């Protein structure tokens, strides 16, 4: 298993790489879309703002290659946090920015309810709404670690794998065929997070 981690300059990739290695994969942090042909899996990480991230992906020449890898080559892929959000049609952070358009939906700011704070930081329960191999052998309704203030508003109900209760409820995992997105950080979510990464590596 050679797992390409897309390095477009947003966030620290070392923890993602270490978690992949511990889960039994070989992590390849890459600055070049040319590396996609060597990869069995793709991880799109990311911390930061949606427009900056799309700009960086365009600048690094990633956009078309990733769309092709996801839609044509059908390489199993996992978007983490902002990386999940980039799979959407567009983001609404600081104005409208087109996303990769892999999974229908838009990314909007969360609306905290009384007594809630933004960003949503910490451990929260992930409630599976659809059976998926991604969550195989994880504990049911386990908590995972979140850090975000925008959320993925899915266009199709069928793409929603899991939800979490905060800011009126939001989508915490999505899927379209072999492309997955998780709003939480599996690489920081202890044993259940590592199991989820193992499950992802077992796909394809």
């Amino acid at each position: 298993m050679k797992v390409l981690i897309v390095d477009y300059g947003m966030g620290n990739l070392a923890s993602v790489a270490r978690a992949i290695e511990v889960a039994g994969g070989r992590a390849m942090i890459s600055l070049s879309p040319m590396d996609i042909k060597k990869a069995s899996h793709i991880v799109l990480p990311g911390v930061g703002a949606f427009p900056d991230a799309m700009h960086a992906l365009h600048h690094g020449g990633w956009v078309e290659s990733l769309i092709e890898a996801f839609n044509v080559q059908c390489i199993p892929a996992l978007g983490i946090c902002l990386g999940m959000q980039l799979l959407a049609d567009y983001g609404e952070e600081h104005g409208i920015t087109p996303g990769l358009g892999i999974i229908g939906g838009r990314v909007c700011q969360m609306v905290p309810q009384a007594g809630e704070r933004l960003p949503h930081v910490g451990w929260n329960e992930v409630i599976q709404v659809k059976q998926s191999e991604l969550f195989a052998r994880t504990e049911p309704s386990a908590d995972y670690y979140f850090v975000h203030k925008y959320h993925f508003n899915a266009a199709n109900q069928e793409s929603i794998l899991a939800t979490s209760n905060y800011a009126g409820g939001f989508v915490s995992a999505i899927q379209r065929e072999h492309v997955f997105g998780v709003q939480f950080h599996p690489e920081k979510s202890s044993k259940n997070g590592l199991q989820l990464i193992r499950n992802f590596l077992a796909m394809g």
Partner: protein
Amino acid sequence: MPLAKRIIPCLDVTAGRVVKGVNFLELRDAGDPVEIAKRYNDQGADELTFLDITASSDDRDLILHVIEAVASQVFIPLTVGGGVRKADDVRRLLNAGADKVSINTTAVSNPEVVEQAASRFGSQAIVVAIDAKATDASNSRWEVFTHGGRRATGLDAVEWALKMQQLGAGEILLTSMDRDGTKIGFNLPLTRAVSDAVDIPVIASGGVGNLQHLVDGVKQGHADAVLAASIFHFGEYSVRQAKEAMHAAGIEVRF
């Protein structure tokens, strides 16, 4: 469902070892940081905090090696503090494997470092640590101290926390110097005053001696997370026992 309240074991690190002091003095060796971190991870700790308490700038890079070693084996959020003077120091710690960086003395001497770091790395990565001491016996006003508790600043702790939130801090790590290492419980009036004043999460620190103190920190101090060192280091309680006590008191925790 509200977010789980967090239990955060704190590892004070100097010369590559975990130590623990009383009222910021009298250091006692508690062991190897990687071994201790793994133990807390296995017990279900929600995060770990590492404070580099090396007084001089010698051995400053040691903490980077400690963080790298811990981050390669422990997959929960790590906060690292101590000796951060500029935004670039934050970057080095994040690259070594920290998820959040805590800024203390520099926040007072150069508040713009907090602002720069928050805009560069996001508020979620920036914790401002406040060491506070009651100004008189009434325990109703608290002054901020820096340099590991050695230097008074004249700043009011509650106002300071608000200012740090404004500059982009994502969290406040609030330590009562009066209580640190005393094992008589958090300074609850201080914790509550700061928690109620700011909108960002507050981590209560300083003084935990038993599990009821953790419960009090959340219920009476209104803290979002509780930090403790000695009760865990010297084997009096496990993180698991702490969570069971909090759960029994009706507090949402992660198991």
